């Protein structure tokens, strides 16, 4: 984007704005990140690495990978289906559906966990039935997976809908006219068109799935080595006065955040000018 002098600010304004940006982000974003790493390495690299030898930490990492490993593909499929229906067709209640897809973004994490307790808890709707069949949902792995799925519902769909609306239906229609089946059209035409947005949605979905704390905390039961995810394990270590290990495990998630961000930057690079934000304000002309 070439800026011309007539539409550029004076030099001092630009300097001022850049400084404000860097100061603001420095105070709010960089310092917490640095703090995590400083605390993690306070007792040296050896203590840092030793933190990951704890079986409870390893089991937490496994559980987090499992929860994300289920939540991300499930929401990927949902996102594609929802985006297809919402972006390619007109139907009444569409606006309501879009809002409902968004809702988990704005629901308090405490509430997200609570709703599953009310359904699957011993005194919930399904509690007595589950108990009679010896099935355990909350305070066990399925509950953690469900809570993770819930908080990550919007991401893929939210990413795809604006893009697919913008792209319209001409490509798909041409493919159909040329004799392709519906499934072929979707796979050969639609999917390649949205693959970067899809990937972007998956990355954000994954980051959120691995980092979720509040909702998972409500349904976890905190059984050491069994139902603790990485964020919960961080809290436990912190409460055990094991600060180095707490921040070391947290740094793992911070690094995940950084890797995710790097991957996303890479994706954005390759998509070049295409809009890639989940929060894109509506579709573009």
């Amino acid at each position: 984007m070439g800026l011309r002098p007539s539409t550029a600010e004076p030099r001092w304004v630009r300097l001022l704005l850049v400084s404000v940006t860097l100061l603001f982000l420095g105070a709010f974003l960089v310092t917490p990140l640095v703090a995590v790493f400083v605390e993690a390495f306070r007792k040296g690299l050896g203590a840092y690495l030793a933190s990951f030898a704890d079986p409870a930490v390893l089991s937490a990492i496994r559980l987090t990978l499992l929860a994300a490993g289920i939540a991300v593909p499930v929401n990927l499929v949902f996102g594609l289906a929802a985006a297809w229906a919402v972006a390619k067709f007109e139907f009444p209640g569409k606006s309501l559906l879009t809002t409902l897809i968004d809702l988990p973004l704005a629901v308090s994490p405490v509430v997200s966990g609570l709703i599953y307790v009310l359904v699957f808890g011993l005194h919930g709707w399904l509690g007595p039935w589950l108990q009679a069949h010896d099935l355990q949902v909350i305070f066990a792995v399925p509950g953690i997976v469900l809570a993770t799925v819930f908080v990550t519902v919007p991401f893929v769909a939210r990413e795809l809908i604006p893009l697919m609306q913008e792209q319209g239906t001409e490509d798909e229609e041409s493919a159909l006219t040329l004799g392709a089946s519906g499934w072929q059209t979707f796979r050969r035409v639609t999917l390649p068109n949205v693959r970067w947005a899809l990937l972007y949605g998956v990355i954000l979905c994954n980051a959120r799935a691995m980092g979720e704390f509040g909702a998972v905390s409500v349904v976890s039961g905190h059984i050491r080595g069994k139902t603790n995810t990485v964020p919960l394990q961080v809290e436990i270590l912190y409460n055990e006065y094991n600060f180095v290990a707490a921040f070391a495990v947290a740094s793992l998630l911070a690094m995940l955040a950084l890797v995710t961000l790097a991957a996303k930057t890479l994706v954005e690079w390759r998509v070049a000018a295409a809009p890639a934000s989940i929060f894109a304000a509506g579709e573009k002309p």
Partner: protein
Amino acid sequence: MRWPRRRHSVLPGFGLTLGFAVVYLSLVALIPMAALFLRSRGLGWGGFWETVTTPRVLAACRLSFGAALIAATINAVFGFVVAWTLTRYRFFGRRLVDALIDLPFALPTAVSGIALTTIYAPTGWLGRALEPLGIKAVFSPLGVVIALTFIGLPFVVRTLQPALEDLEVEVEEAAASLGARRRQTFRRVILPAVAPALLTGFALAFARALGEYGSVVFISGNLPGKTEIAPLLIVTQLEQYDYEGATAIAVLLLVVSFVMLLVINALQRWSGGRHARGA
């Protein structure tokens, strides 16, 4: 009319995808949320009203709404500057800064809370500097605002960025060539064009901040009536085995969030419409 009407019916899969989306959403989100409403109904309308209007709940809601509003406003102002800088200027480390914006999104809220408390406590890096000035940054409403600002920042910046990138430089040039000064161009041309996106980002940051729990409990003092937020009150009610009271407050937050989102979607349509007209 943004979507030409009948044209889409050529495409297959409408029933399948919509059916799946609705069923999935119902199973994962809507039915569990219905449980929340039904449980709070146990109180009756009078009991519900009584629960959500006790002084303690009102104070918590005031703090939650107030802090969320302030945080969203801070984010709107600074988020605008950040988004503007990132889209318009080229400076050293811009890509890294751009990548960092999403950090609050990926970092678990408990870690954010602990890290922020470490920094802003009187013994921390920034807290040490603030304390002589008489500013109490942790265990005060200010702490709540700090945490909520941290949480909400990506929403504003990420909403504004595409809108700013989308602005036609020609329009600004035209304004300039008609003799408008830079400040006038900004106020009359740029700001109105990105206002919907800014409002959307503001509303999203606000909605997210309203429900935030994990990071706030670490940095807020949790004093009833002073630094206690509404989601903490839900937890407190649960600790007393008062499920009806907890669900009543939860329903209040849920309804407010839902209304916020409806407004957001309306804003997005409006913004989409403006863009369409502008192009």
